[in-house]
């Protein structure tokens, strides 16, 4: 049987989007009261929850602490019910440690850690439902949670994926596109300065395609940053209305 046709001749993708369109984004901040910051994020059917604690004193061995800046501790996990096949996911398997590491690198580039020497910031993210772009949903959710916790950052960190079909770059891949299309690139961007916090790509890609792919991913990130910004502003409004009462 023929594989999936990722992009029709009329320019529509499997789910009816055009090449550069993002999936529907929904987000909420401050979903948990007890944490310092928290956020819930939906990008299409990918749903992520992020919780932030800190900055606080370094827990455990003191040797981990850094004298000039804060340590960022990230933990990534996937819910057992997050994929079509129910799977027990032991803590700290290779994939999630890798993802945790990537998140840590991303936020070390964005959070102004030098403001909090000898302290620690914990970021916990969980994928509740997975439909492609897990990393980007986590980054976006964590960004909102950090904002909610009031931790200063250089800029929003926005992440998005991009892939390739029939010579056209597709933004914000869903699961079917991620698995059926070959290359997928994840990009985390600080949109205002256009600096890249992290780029990741597992498959091989010809260098001729790299520019278009990066371009598409950057555009998608910028689009996302607008959405995140409006979520933050709306949240602020809600909170200020509440506190005024």
């Amino acid at each position, binding site marked *: *049987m*023929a594989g999936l*046709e990722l992009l*029709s*001749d*009329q320019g*529509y993708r*499997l*789910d*009816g*989007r055009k090449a550069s*369109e993002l*999936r*529907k984004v929904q987000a909420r901040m401050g979903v948990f009261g007890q944490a310092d910051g928290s956020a819930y994020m939906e990008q*299409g*059917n990918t749903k992520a929850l992020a919780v932030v604690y800190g900055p606080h004193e370094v827990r455990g061995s003191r040797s981990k602490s850094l004298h000039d800046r804060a340590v960022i501790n990230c933990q990534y996990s996937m819910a057992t019910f997050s994929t*079509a*096949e129910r799977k027990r996911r032991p803590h700290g398997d290779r994939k999630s440690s890798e993802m945790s590491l990537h998140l840590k690198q991303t936020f070390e580039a964005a959070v102004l850690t030098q403001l909090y020497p000898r302290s620690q910031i914990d970021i916990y993210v969980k994928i509740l439902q997975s*439909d492609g772009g897990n990393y980007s949903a986590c980054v976006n959710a964590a960004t909102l949670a950090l904002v909610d916790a009031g931790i200063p950052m250089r800029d929003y960190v926005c992440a998005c994926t991009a892939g390739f079909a029939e010579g056209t770059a597709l933004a914000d891949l*869903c699961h*079917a596109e991620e698995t059926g299309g070959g290359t997928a690139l994840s990009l985390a961007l600080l949109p205002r300065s256009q600096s890249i916090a992290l780029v990741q790509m597992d498959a*091989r*890609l*010809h260098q*001729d*395609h790299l520019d278009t792919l990066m371009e598409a991913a950057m555009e998608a990130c910028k689009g996302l940053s607008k959405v995140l910004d409006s979520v933050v502003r709306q949240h602020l409004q809600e909170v200020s209305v509440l506190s005024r009462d």
Partner: protein
Amino acid sequence: MLKSKTFVKKTRSGGVLKIVREHYLRDDIWCGSEVCTECKDDSPVLQRDAFIQSRLCTYPHYLIPDTNVVLHQIDILEDPVMRNVVILQTVLQEVRHRSAPVYKRIKDAIHEKEKHFYTFTNEHHRETFVEREQGESANDRNDRAIRVAALWYNQHLRKAPCAGELRVVLLTNDQANKEKATEDGLLAYRCEEYIKSLIGNPELVDRLALTSNEQNEITGGRVLFPEHLPLSRIQTGIKNGTFLQGTFRANRDNYLEATVFVHGEGEDGTEVLLQGLQNLNRAVHQDIVAVELFPRERWAAPSAAVLEDDHANDEDAEEEEAEKLESPALETSMLKPTGRVVGIIKRNWRPFCGMLTQSQIKEATRHLFTPADRHIPRIRIETRQASALVGHRIIVAIDGWPRNSRYPNGHFVRNLGGAGDKETETEVLLLEHDVPHQPFSKAVLSFLPRMPWAITEEDLKVRADLRHLCVCSVDPPGCTDIDDALHCRELDNGNLEVGVHIADVSHFIRPGNALDQEAANRGTTVYLCGKRIDMVPELLSSDLCSLRSNVDRLAFSCVWEMNRNAEIIRTHFTKSVINSKASLTYAEAQMRIDDATMNDDITNSLRGLNALAKILKGRRIEKGALTLSSPEVRFHMDSETHDPIDLQTKELKDTNSMVEEFMLLANISVAQKIYEEFSECALLRKHPAPPLSNYDILVKAAKSRDLEIHTDSAKALADSLNAAVLGGFPYFNTLLRILATRCMMQAIYFCSGMDSDFRHYGLASPIYTHFTSPIRRYSDIIVHRLLAVAINADGTYPDLMDKHKQSTLCNNLNYRHKMAQYAQRASVAFHTQLFFKNKGILNEEGFILFVRKNAIIILIAKFGLEGTVFFKNKGKPGPKLSFDSEGPSLTVEDQHTFHMFDKVKVTVTLDASNIQHQKIRMALVEPVIAGVSVAWPEPAAKKPKLDR
């Protein structure tokens, strides 16, 4: 822009997996009509005055066909009359799912601007999306989606201010769907109904496919075939091992027999033998079928008989056919698993070329069609123009094969022209072998260099200027696409410098453009007798790329430094500019070498090359390279009428092998280089060693003459072939080599990242590729590009580095090469027939190449011609035959026993009684067997004057 996110799809795959996918509905999908003012479509596809003259619809209208109409009536939809058709996404998706070839054809139609076909993405349109209801089947939902979309069009177009009477018309052959559509207030017609109502296009009616409703009427109720199982049962059966899945291959010599090749794990597969119409159960050549194996006691040996299905056009002659099969052979070693077809997994029907056999009943509209390809059964079609089609080559497509019909049903597609015409026959063999032979399109030609073309300063800057070298080319006479040239000169250190210069086609054909895509699709130039179907336009093949003498040409050079012992000291690749000093034929080159009085640069260069080539060849043969032979025939054509006047087998000269030797060397050097540089994506060529069982016939044949052939390695085979010489029978060795050639496997292209076995068995080389003929082979263009990247002469591009894409390309190239070869053979056969038609009856000496149960196959060396002498003629009681498969030998009337390689005398005539399968008939003259052999015909037999 995203309207809302409704999500609906739940599919199961493999186990019970719930797959959830988003499904966005949009507001910005346009209707694509010129009349519409509401949609913001920049370039609407559907015309304002969509007018097809029809008695049913007297107003302008757009057609919306449903899935089955597209699937079955694609021949109609492709006709230029059919314009302004809306293809719904629902339909397109279903078609894609069900038939890849039809999907490709409908997409081609959509891309054709003059057809005004518009794809409406109804599944993502907010107003036309429908959700599957409880208890509704997927098919019903899709039918409903089609109706909803049609309804939407009606309402939408009505809103347009100047739509006038514009309507949409739904075409469906499903009665229930049609009724529901009419209830909804839609105009719906059956496809036949609509086509028959068209004014001024009566010939379209013939091209209607017979749909299932009508099939029942066609033949009486008698059920002839067992039922096909539904796909679901087949799949369960295959999973639990009761059925096997494989490719159905009809036996071209015996219509009651076929094999199914079942792919096993890894390389090996098994073959299941099917015998009798019931067991073949309506499978057609190349279908993917499910078979059920019979118990071991019913296993049988393939019958060696030749049976042709040439019943007259009557339907009742099929009763006793099952009995006609020979009783199975008794030796158990010969037994093969047998079975029957229980179901069809995938039909692989294509349009077939062939001829009509007119029904004896004068007014009948149903006729039998006999395909040219003898793997394909005869097809029943309905046409009113039978008398006009008789004697013509036509194309017919199969529509279906009901259980109560002896033959499949089909419909007429196209008339190619009178049978026997050279044009028509060439067209037929090109079509039958799927050789793309249309003239190059404008888009393709637009990528040719502007004329006048000249080598620029920039070209010279990045290329080695080798114009001073004494380069020459050696080719067959009349060759206009010269893609290789050679030189050889002495260096100061006493070594020799040898250069192979290949036309730099990749300089002109840039990756990915229309010209490149066309060449990649064609894959190879096809050489027929007196006709060449180019892979690249003539401007390139015969002019700019052709390394003709005394003009500057761009080349890709492979230059070696060699010592006198032909050992390579240094290899160097470079893009270059050359100026060939002479274009020689093989004979001319040979003459120069042999003529001691000639001492010019060219001749000396040739002598140097020749000496080295002999050393190289010796070394290659030492390593176990095979020298096989096949009888190759060339025609001397009358230059005006292009009729063959004389025919001769190809003659090989020293210089042939000189050129060949250096081409092999260049190919090997390049293969090493590109593999070194690109271990994952080098395009290479390999030749697998044949399974030992392939050699059975060869070993047996040699044994019958008390000679032994060793087949455990290429070297052993080569040595034992060399040793297999019979005194007083000089041609014997050639015959053995001809047989050995038939034991070989096909050499194939592959991508180095997808395979681990690279060996070229025939050349005894660990690695090999094709570099030396880029004008006529696309593989060489890719190899040029790889090599150019490897030496930093050119940039790479994505598809070049993608091993999967390259693998797909290799598959196409392998297919095209195989087909080109077949087409070439068919062309030789056709011209052989023309030749014999003009010659009348000939008496010739020949050798027996194979012995069959009821026939011997004879090779006439002089013509490279193969023919069959049958010992059983239809309608007559045949002579007594006894066949011994060990020999193999055949004893006729207890008088004479035929062995392989026996010398016989035969008469050769052209049997034109069946114009479609004109055959070279051979009849035995010597040895004389009473009642079997024929007398020498009168020596001065009057040549029948055949005018055409």
